[in-house]
């Protein structure tokens, strides 16, 4: 079997006396659709903050595409192919949707050699795929919630990632909107992008993921096929607090 795309081993993260992550290990193969679940405060976002470089892990190692990420800042990791969206959308509010994507394209894809027009075209193509093309010239501060979530995914895509981490891209969305975002993620995955999905909406995770991991209080409590994880007693206890 080939090496995993992302390999996290023994990662811990403490905030003062609080242990947010303890000895987390996981491996994700290229092209996989991976679901990360767990109750609020279980450490899902902390884990992806450590992977994307927003936070530094205290112990353990994170390897991506065969290289150790320790010591690399977030922008260097983005340039190596890890892109993410945020749980609470973080648009560049003074910019149009198109410009939001151009930031990622210009800065994450070093030496892309595109002319300004070609860069515009690539950004527009991504917006078209995600269904935001008609909003390209709108200020990102004026977008609706679902549009912001899509823009975050589009901006992540503009960085031409190998791995896309979607942090609750569907939180607060209604049924049809969830399907839209889910479709988008399926499409991206079909193009060969590995996807980690963090989500509270169980049907979405179940439908999307090939493999699911559940965190609780900073530890891995279960990992496996979606249905098996769902049926696991510990998972049910973590969620229902039994």
């Amino acid at each position, binding site marked *: 079997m080939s090496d995993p795309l992302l390999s996290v081993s023994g990662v811990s993260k403490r905030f003062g006396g609080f242990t947010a992550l303890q000895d987390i290990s996981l491996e994700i193969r290229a092209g996989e659709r991976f679901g990360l679940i767990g109750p609020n405060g279980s450490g899902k976002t902390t884990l992806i903050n450590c992977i994307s470089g927003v936070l530094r892990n205290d112990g353990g190692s994170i390897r991506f595409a065969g290289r150790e990420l320790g010591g690399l800042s977030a922008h260097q990791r*983005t340039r190596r192919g890890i892109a993410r969206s945020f749980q609470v959308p973080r648009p560049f509010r003074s910019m149009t949707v198109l410009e939001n994507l151009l930031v990622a394209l210009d800065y994450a894809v070093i030496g892309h050699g595109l002319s300004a027009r070609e860069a515009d075209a690539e950004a527009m193509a991504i917006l078209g795929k995600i269904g935001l093309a008609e909003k390209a010239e709108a200020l990102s501060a004026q977008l609706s919630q679902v549009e912001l979530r899509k823009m975050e995914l589009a901006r992540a895509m503009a960085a031409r990632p190998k791995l896309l981490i979607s942090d609750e891209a569907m939180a607060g969305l209604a049924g049809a909107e969830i399907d839209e975002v889910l479709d988008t993620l399926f499409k991206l995955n079909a193009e060969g992008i590995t996807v980690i999905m963090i989500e509270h909406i169980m049907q979405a995770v179940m439908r999307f993921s090939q493999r699911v991991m559940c965190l609780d209080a900073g530890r891995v409590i279960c990992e496996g096929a979606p249905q098996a994880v769902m049926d696991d007693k510990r998972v049910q206890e973590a969620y229902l607090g039994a």
Partner: protein
Amino acid sequence: MRSVPFLIGAAVFLTAAVTAAFVVRNEYVFFAGFVILQFIVLATAWNILGGYAGYVNFGTSAFVGVGIYTAVAVFKYAGAPLYLQMLAAAAVGAALGLGVGLLTLRLRGIFFSIATVAVTIIAETLITNWKFVGGATGVQLLRPPPTAPFESYIKMLFVVVAVLVVIAVALARYIQLSGVGRGLRAVRDDEVAAECSGVPTLKLKLLACAISGALMSAAGAPAAMYLQFADPVSAFNLNYSVSALAMSLIGGTAHWIGPVLGAILLATTQQFLTVTISSEVNVLVLGVMLVLFVVGAPDGIIGLAKRAWQRWGRR
């Protein structure tokens, strides 16, 4: 292509400044004009960090003071000519800028601003205790004769600062239009998102700090020869910090022209009031105008103009 009107504007401005230096006889015009041009540089420099990157710097006076005293030091030590004084000041200003830039690693928003005030106090204290440059009592400087073809030193200083204005505005404009400008805007809007979009935020902030600092100190340097005197209290006067900030905000921070307009408007008003009423009143006017703009036109003169333009276009 879109640089042509700008280049023409810069050429016209420089030609006018040089022509004035040889045609206008009244020296007071240049005495006042020097201050106005100096503030255009300061406001433009402030905006590179404060406007584009969103880091509000209250330390303009630190950079101006350090610029003045660098000029004093190299003049006293080696009799360096004006342009060397300014180059040395720019180098020291850039270094100080890098230091201030490192503060952004841990401090954001108001905390960064407070730290820059502290930088001013530290710099002023150091200079006050440095005997070679006169300490607290200040230092008298005897300026050399002006370089040909200028027949008066004030006129020469005026033209030199006019050149610095063109350099500063051209740099600010270049930064705004280049990819660096977009990166700095991303930093201002959301630093974490910028970093996760591949923007090397620290590098860009350090670059902005260094350029901004170099320009501020270079603009401060000629003040030594202008006054033929330097003392820590006036060199590190808080007025520089407040004015540079107010001019940028009043003009508008989103575009390079904003600080230029703000500086022309405010500095001219101040010069006028200083002569006609008193130098205390001009500080009051600055404060009142800042409040009016922050409440009534948060995007400054540029914002007002844009709105007027859109209303006109709809008709």
